[in-house]
């Protein structure tokens, strides 16, 4: 029965192949004078468009640090992993960084979904993640330091300014997922408290490109202010259709909460000119740290590249980690977390301070007008706002 022989060979070969498996996966031996940090973002898939530039900012910061002598005398070696816009992959890669590469800190995650997927992994390993995106709040993990704004630091400042300067009736429009819904919950409470009214609230699926009915409703409601939390590619269609419907900055106040300089490039500045946006950071900020950051970024990645809020927050995160390590005198995670409390840093967005217990940053909210060059002219800047991820509504 040669059939049996065939089967024997089959299994012998398969077994041979699999016993080689551990050897093919042997991890690199860490050199004594380097220290490994992880970077975990989507470099492939639908989120790559937004996240790849965040990786660029993180790598820039690491290279700058290495050029000036490293951290505690050690060269920082970044290990980049691709979350592939897929949340289980994020969890897997986070485990790989922590349990296989034993990184001392990790910079990464972008969407809330990816953060939620890696959070249990970081908590289980008692590790440290720096998260750079502005997000909805409602979270406080001992394993994460949040360098982006949480909802109250952006929304509340934006609403107060709008109420004082632009009118009282507000139309809320956003993409249908957790960040816009939470943001609008806060906005509604704040608008009502300040004597304003919400005249409409609409959510559209992520990736939606048909806005005519919403635009008609906005036209009929004639609000003083449109507050948009539409994200990603939908924005291109939204602003083009607004313009086609005859709505522009000359006859309608509109504030976008998810449009950074990068999105402006994608949407086309001509469709957005004169509309408002609210972030902690704009590329146009005038301060020495930012000018140096922008110049270094353009020198390395090209004159045409722009810098947006999450990129600056990611760049800040690397320097915050360096400062905390140096203050602690060790790479040990609990020591670094302890040293991070109330740590201040001169970041591209100005001075930031880590909150003493909720792991978020004290940040300023800035409101600006989008100009024809796709940059933002700052017209208002708040005092540093205390982070409060669980705001009372």
């Amino acid at each position, binding site marked *: *029965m*040669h*059939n*049996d*022989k*065939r*089967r*024997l*060979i*089959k*299994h012998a*070969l*398969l*077994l041979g*192949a*699999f*016993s080689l*498996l*551990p050897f*093919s*996966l042997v991890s690199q031996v860490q050199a004594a004078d380097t220290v490994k940090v992880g970077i975990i973002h989507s*470099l*492939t898939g639908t989120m790559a468009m937004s996240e790849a530039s965040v990786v660029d900012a993180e790598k820039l910061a690491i290279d700058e640090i290495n050029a000036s002598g490293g951290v505690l005398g050690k060269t920082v070696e970044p290990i*980049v*992993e*691709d979350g*592939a816009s*897929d*949340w*289980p992959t994020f*969890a*897997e*890669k986070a*485990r*790989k960084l922590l*349990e*296989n590469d034993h990184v001392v800190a990790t910079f990464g995650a972008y*969407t*809330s*979904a990816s953060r*939620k*997927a890696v*959070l*249990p*992994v970081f*908590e*289980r390993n008692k590790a440290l993640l720096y998260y750079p995106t502005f997000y*909805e709040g*409602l979270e*406080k993990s001992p394993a994460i330091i949040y360098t982006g704004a949480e909802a109250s630091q952006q929304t509340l400042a934006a609403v107060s300014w709008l109420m004082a300067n632009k009118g009282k009736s507000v139309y809320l429009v956003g993409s*249908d*997922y*957790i960040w816009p*819904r*939470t943001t609008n*919950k806060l906005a509604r409470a704040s608008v009502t408290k300040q004597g304003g009214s919400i005249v409409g609230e609409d959510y559209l*699926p*992520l990736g939606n490109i048909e806005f005519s009915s919403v635009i008609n409703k906005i036209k009929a409601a004639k609000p003083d202010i449109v507050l948009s939390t539409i994200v990603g590619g939908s924005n291109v269609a939204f602003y083009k259709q607004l313009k086609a419907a005859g709505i522009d900055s000359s006859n309608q106040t509109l504030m976008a909460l998810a449009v950074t300089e990068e999105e402006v490039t994608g949407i086309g500045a001509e469709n957005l000119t004169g509309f408002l946006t609210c972030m902690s950071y704009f590329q146009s900020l005038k301060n020495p740290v930012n000018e140096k950051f922008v110049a270094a970024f353009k020198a390395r990645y090209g004159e045409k590249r722009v810098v947006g809020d999450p990129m600056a927050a990611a760049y800040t995160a690397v320097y915050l980690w360096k400062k905390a390590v140096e203050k602690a005198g060790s790479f040990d995670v609990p020591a670094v977390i302890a040293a991070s409390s109330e740590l201040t840093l001169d970041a591209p967005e100005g001075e930031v301070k880590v909150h003493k217990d909720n792991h978020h940053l004290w940040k300023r909210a800035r409101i600006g007008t989008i100009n024809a060059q796709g940059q933002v002219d700052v017209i208002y800047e708040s005092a540093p706002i205390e982070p409060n991820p*669980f705001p009372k509504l």
Partner: protein
Amino acid sequence: MNDMTETPLTRSSTQASTTRRLRDGLLPLLERHSLIWLSLLLLVILPLSLGDFRLGLAGKYLSLAFCAVGMVMIWGYGGILSLGQGIFFGLGSYMMAMYLKLEATATDEAASALAAFYGSALPDFMIWNSVDALPWWWKPFESATFTFAAILILPALLAFVFSYAYFKKRVGGVYFSIITLSLAAIMSIMIIGQQGYTGGVNGLTDFKTAFGLSLQTPQTPWILYLITSLLLLGCVALCGFILRSRLGKVVVAIRDREDRVRFSGYNTALFKAFIFAVAALISALGGVMFTLQVGLASPSLVGIIPSTEIVIYAALGGRLSLVGAVYGTLLIGVAKTYLSENFVNFWQYFIGFLFMGVVLFLPTGLAGLLQRLGHGKQEVQS
């Protein structure tokens, strides 16, 4: 357990004498026990040679291998190409996750702090989405017994009823594939759309305990790996048993000439629906083990892409080989891990080429290739 694979080969008599000699030796013991080989790999070699992290990865891929084993049953032997096995994987995964989420909500400190803050003890994502009360179809999942019963019954029942309806109408071949494909798409769109009830794109995550046992101890991944392996081996054995039974023979006969079997008086739709339900049950078990090990249920596991990947796993292993499906899944898992760690920016192209290569050069999979190599000439039927 012997003869796990059908042998679609016509035996040539020239080599019979050599084999006959080997037959009296040690070889029959080894070669006829493919399941024992697999057990050895899963229960001894991998645990001994892999560290915590790699073993966890192996466990994750093994949970996908459940679907591939099911795929061998329905596609290789039943002749039904389903492009929607992710549905049943997802059902198992989500039902397990619902139980774990409710357990986390009831016991975890952070969750109860959040609940106290918002004044209701709901899973965190429901609170964020302004859902006021636990939906009725979530409530039974507070019970572990119900959850297990549901996992064992629901996907299989659903698969049976759904596929029987179509098979009875004699919908088959590519039309059935398209229907399963659309169902997979519908399911992932539904989960993403119903964010307040399903967690949306975020999925269900952040579990701390399972049945009162912590998921965070260093032993947990080992225990879960062991359960996954044993369960998978059990499923392979069960499928082998079904295929060798008379029922299995009828299924294969239906695959080859359905009309003849029907004319002989068999209700072929019933047999096909049964085998489809078995595959659904196995896939659901894989989903359960996936959720326990990876710690989340996500819509990205139920859609079209994961469902078609399952077909590739089975194709690589050889769609007539139950153990081959497991090897195929593991190999692609290893390739994905290796490539994504070493070619961070463009690893997905390699995976794409790998899939294309399998279809182009290995139409009968690894099992077929090895049979060809062992035999020296190509006589594997497609």
